[in-house]
C-alpha cells in the first residue's frame, strides 16, 4: 500500500510513523510537506502527532489551513483512508472531517502513560485485525485529549457505531478510573459516518516494537493494510488474509 505521512510545522511523530510503516511493516511511504498541494497516488494518509503550529490558539486550529489539507479533504471525499493520531485527530476535528473536538485534559495536565483501549467495533478499516472487545495496550501523551461533542452528536456516534476505541482498564472494563482525560463516553477513537476517516488519541506508532512500547499498535496499521485502502466491509473481509512482508 502507498502511504502518505504529512509533516506540519511542529509535527513530532511523523518520522516515527514513517519508520513503523516503512521500516517495520514494509509499506511504501511518501513524506508530505504541509505546503504541498497534491498528494500523488496514495492509498492512505496519516496526520501524525505533535504540536502543529505550537498548538497555539487551539490544537490543530492552524494546521487545518495548511495548503495540504485541501488535498487531504479531497482525498477523504473520494473515499481515501485517512487516520489522524493525537494532534492529527485534533486537526481532523478542527477541519470538520470528524465530529466533536478535543479540549484540555480533565486535570489540566499533560499526560504521558500506557493506557488500555477497548476495540468497540471491528468492522472498520482501522480495526479489522482486532477482536471485538480486545484490549490494546497503547500509550497516550497529550495535554488536550478530552473528547467532547454535544449530546446529539454523541447519540449519532453511538447509533452509527462510530465509536471505535474507548479507554478501559487492563481487563477491558470502562470505568471512571480508566478514563485518563475526562473524554465523554471514554472515547479514545472515532470514525466518520462513511468509515474512511479515523482519529485516535493513543499512539499506535509508539506501540509497534517489543523493545519500545509493545506491539499492540501495529494492529491499527495492519488493519488499514488489510482493508487495501478501501473502507467498504466487503473488501475488508476479502483482503483480511493478506500478510505483510518486509522489503
Amino acid at each position, binding site marked *: 500500500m502507498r502511504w502518505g505521512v504529512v509533516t506540519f*510545522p511542529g509535527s513530532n511523530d511523523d518520522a516515527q510513523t514513517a519508520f*513503523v510503516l516503512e521500516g517495520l511493516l514494509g509499506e511504501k511511504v511518501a513524506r508530505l510537506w504541509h505546503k504541498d498541494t497534491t498528494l500523488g497516488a496514495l492509498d492512505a494518509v496519516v496526520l501524525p502527532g*505533535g504540536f502543529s503550529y505550537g498548538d497555539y490558539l487551539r490544537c490543530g486550529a492552524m494546521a487545518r489551513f495548511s495548503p495540504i489539507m485541501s488535498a487531504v479533504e479531497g482525498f477523504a471525499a473520494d473515499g481515501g483512508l485517512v487516520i489522524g493520531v493525537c494532534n492529527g485527530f485534533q486537526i481532523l476535528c478542527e477541519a470538520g472531517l470528524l465530529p466533536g473536538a478535543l479540549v484540555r485534559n480533565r486535570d489540566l*495536565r*499533560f499526560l*504521558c*502513560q500506557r493506557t488500555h483501549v477497548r476495540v468497540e467495533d471491528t468492522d472498520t478499516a482501522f480495526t479489522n485485525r482486532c477482536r471485538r472487545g480486545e484490549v490494546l495496550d497503547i500509550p497516550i*501523551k497529550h495535554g488536550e485529549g478530552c473528547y467532547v461533542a454535544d449530546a446529539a452528536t454523541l447519540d449519532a456516534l453511538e447509533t452509527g457505531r462510530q465509536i471505535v476505541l474507548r479507554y478501559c482498564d487492563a481487563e477491558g472494563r470502562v470505568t471512571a478510573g480508566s478514563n485518563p482525560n475526562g473524554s465523554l463516553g471514554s472515547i479514545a477513537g472515532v470514525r466518520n459516518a462513511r468509515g474512511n476517516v479515523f482519529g485516535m488519541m493513543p499512539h499506535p*506508532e*509508539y506501540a509497534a516494537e517489543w523493545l519500545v512500547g509493545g506491539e499492540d499498535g501495529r494492529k491499527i496499521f495492519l488493519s488499514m493494510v488489510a482493508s487495501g485502502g478501501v473502507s467498504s466491509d466487503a473488501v475488508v473481509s476479502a483482503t483480511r488474509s493478506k500478510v505483510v512482508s518486509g522489503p
Partner: protein
Amino acid sequence: MTAPQVTLATAHEHGLTTDEFAQIETILGRTPTFEELGVFSVMWSEHCSYKSSRVHLKTLPTTGPRVLQGPGENAGALDVGDGVAVVFKIESHNHPSFVEPFQGAATGVGGILRDIFTMGARPIANLNSLHFGRPEHARTPFLVRGVVAGIGHYGNCIGVPTVGGEVHFDPGYDHNILVNAFTLGVVASDRIFRAAADGPGNSVLYVGSKTGRDGIHGASLLASAEFDAESETKRPTVQVGDPFTEKLLLEACLELMSPAYSEHLVGIQDMGAAGLTSSSTEMASRSGTGIDLDLSRVPLRERVVTPYEMLLSESQERMLLVVHRGSEEIVQELFRKWDLDAEVIGTVTDSQRLRATFEGRLVVDIPIDPLTDGAPALNRPAAEAAEQETPRLVLADLPEPVDYGEALLQLLASPNLCSREWVYRQYDAYVGGGTIVRPGSDAAVVRLPGTEKAIAISVDSMARFCAIDPYVGMVSAVAESARNLAASGAEPIGVTNCLNFGNPEKPEVMWQFQQAVQGLHDACVAFGTPVVSGNVSFYNETEGSSIPPSPVIGMVGLLEDASQHVTQWFKGDGDAIVLLGRNHEELGGSEYVATAHHQVRGTLPWIDLDVERRLIDVLRAGAREGLLRSAHDVSAGGLAIALAECCITSESSARHGARIDLEDGLRPDALLFGESHGRAVVSARRRHLTRLRELADRAEVPIAVIGEVRGQRLEIGELVALGVDEMHTRWSEAFAGLLGEE
C-alpha cells in the same frame, strides 16, 4: 537617542569593580562607550567568564579514547563506535525558574537543547535535576507545579523525550530552587559542528526569533549576583519560551548541517546568555578572527530597541551562523522554508576585534582576547567553615522504630523517596521512538538510531551528603550514577556536571566548591569517565544564606546491545533475590535518620571506589550474559527501600512480592535503612546462580542469596510484612499529597 555617559558609577551599576573598570580603560586606551561597558560587563560576569571556577575546572580529567570534544565547546562529545557520537551537557536555570517557574524552566530546556543541536546532533533525550524547598513551604507547591509544567511544555512541544531526572526537597532551597536541565543528542562522529568564525570575508547570519528586550542582564547578571528583595524590582523582563519556533530552528539547523547543505556552513553557535555579544565574541575567539556587526540589520520584535539592548538581549530561540561568502542566499532560502528570519548582520574580519555599528555609527570596538581567554580569572580564598564540624551521630541514642513495617511505609511516602510519577507523567517519554526504559528505573535507556546499541543516562546529586561533606558527597553522587548505569546494563563512559553553589566570594563556599571539584576528579579518574562538559552556577544565595553545596552530575553509559538492558523491578515468582556487596552499620546522613529522627548528620557511609568499580563490573557482566532479570542499586533509603522498590516500581500492574531473610548481625534499622555504598539487589533464575556467583567471586564482590520473588507481600525476616498494593499506594500517592492535592 544617545547612550548614557560612562563613568565609574555606571561601571559599578554593571557589576564591574573599580579595578576592572581601570583594566577596561587600559585595554581600550579610552573610556568605553555605554555599549562597550555592557559588553565587558556580561563577558566578564561569572556566568560567561567562569572567573572564580576556571582555575579549578582545569584540573578535571577531560581526555580519553572516546572523547571527540571535551569542555570548551557548546557541549561535549563521545565516540560510541559505528561512526556515531553522543553529545551532551547539563546546565542550570535556577534564578529564572525561581522568578517565573514555568517560563524559567521552559527556557532552561530550550537553552540546553540549542547547545546540543548547535553541534549538529539531534537531541534524543532530556533529563532534569530539581531541588525544591520544604514541601510545607508556602511557595513550594507553586514552584513544583510551574517548573514541571514548564519542562514538560518545552520538551513535549519540541518533540524531545524527557526520560529521567531527580527531585529533592530540602529547607536549604526554600528561597533558591535548582533547576538543571540535561540533553543528549546523536550525530555522525565525523559531522560534529563547532562554533568557529573562520575565514575573513565570510558572512555572519542571524537566524531564528526576532530580538526583543527580554532578559537583558538576565542569565548573566542574575546568575552572578545574590538574590534579594531588591532584585524583585530590578527584575528584567522575563523570557517566554517559544518551543514551536525552536522546533523549526532545530529542523532548519539540522537540515543546514546535513550533507546536502553543510558545505555552506563555517560555524554555528546558539545565542544563549549575553546573546549576540557572547556568541559573536566566542566564535571569533575560537578562530583567532574578528567580527564586524551591523546592528541596524538585527531583526527586531519591538520598534525601539537600542544597540545596547541588541547586544545584550537574551531573547530565546536565536542562533548565529557563519557561512561562506556567496552562500548567503542559499542558506536564507533554507530558513525561509521553515518560516524563520535569516539576516546577514555582519562579516568575519582578520582584525581580532569585535566591532559593531548602528546606523553608521561605531558603537563597539574591542579586542576579542580580553573578552574571552584574557578575561579576569581569580583564585579566590577558600577556607572550611568552622561549623562544618557536624556533631557525631551516636547510634545508641537513636531509638529503634517500634514497627518496622510502619517505618518502611513512612519512608516510602517521604518527600525524597516517594514516587516521582506525578512529575514524569507530564513528560512525553515516548516521542522519537527510541526510549527503551522510561522514567521509573535506575537509569533511562534510549537506543542509538541506526545501531544495535543503546545509551543509558542518570543524573544524580547527593545534596544531603554534600551538606555534611562536599568531597564525600560528590564522590558518592558519581558512584550512584555509575551504579545506576551498571544496574541498567551499561558501561559508564563519560560525565557532565552542574556545580550549584552559593557566593564564591565567601571562603567557605569556595572551600565547598574545591572539595566537590576534587571529589569529581577522583571519582571520574577511578571510573575512567572523562568530564566532557559542564556548567557552574554560583551565587545561589538569598539574603546572605546560601544553598547547601549541590553539585549535580549527569553520567552517560553505553550498552553494546540494546536488548541487554535491565530494569529494576522483579519479573517473576520463583526468581532468586541476590544481594551484591556488603551491609555495614552506617546510618550517618541517611534518609531514615532525616525522616524518622529529623537530623542531617553523622559520619557518611564509607566509600571505596575500587569496590564500586568491581560491583559495576559484576552488574555489567551479569547483564551482558543475560543473567539478570532485574537489578537495582541500593541508595537513598537503604536496602529495605531498594527491595520495596523492586516490588512496586513496575509500570504495569503485574507487581511481585518477595520473601527475604537477612543474616547480618547489624542493628536492624541500620541493616534496613543504612545507606552503605557498593551494593545492589538483583534477581535471577535459580539456574543462573552458579554463574552469577562465579562472576562475583572473580571480582571479589560479596554475594548472598537473600530471598525469593514470591506472592504479593514483602516479608523481611520477622521485621516487615507488607502487602505490595499497600506499599504501592502509599508510595505512589504521596507526591500529590505533598502538593496539597488529594
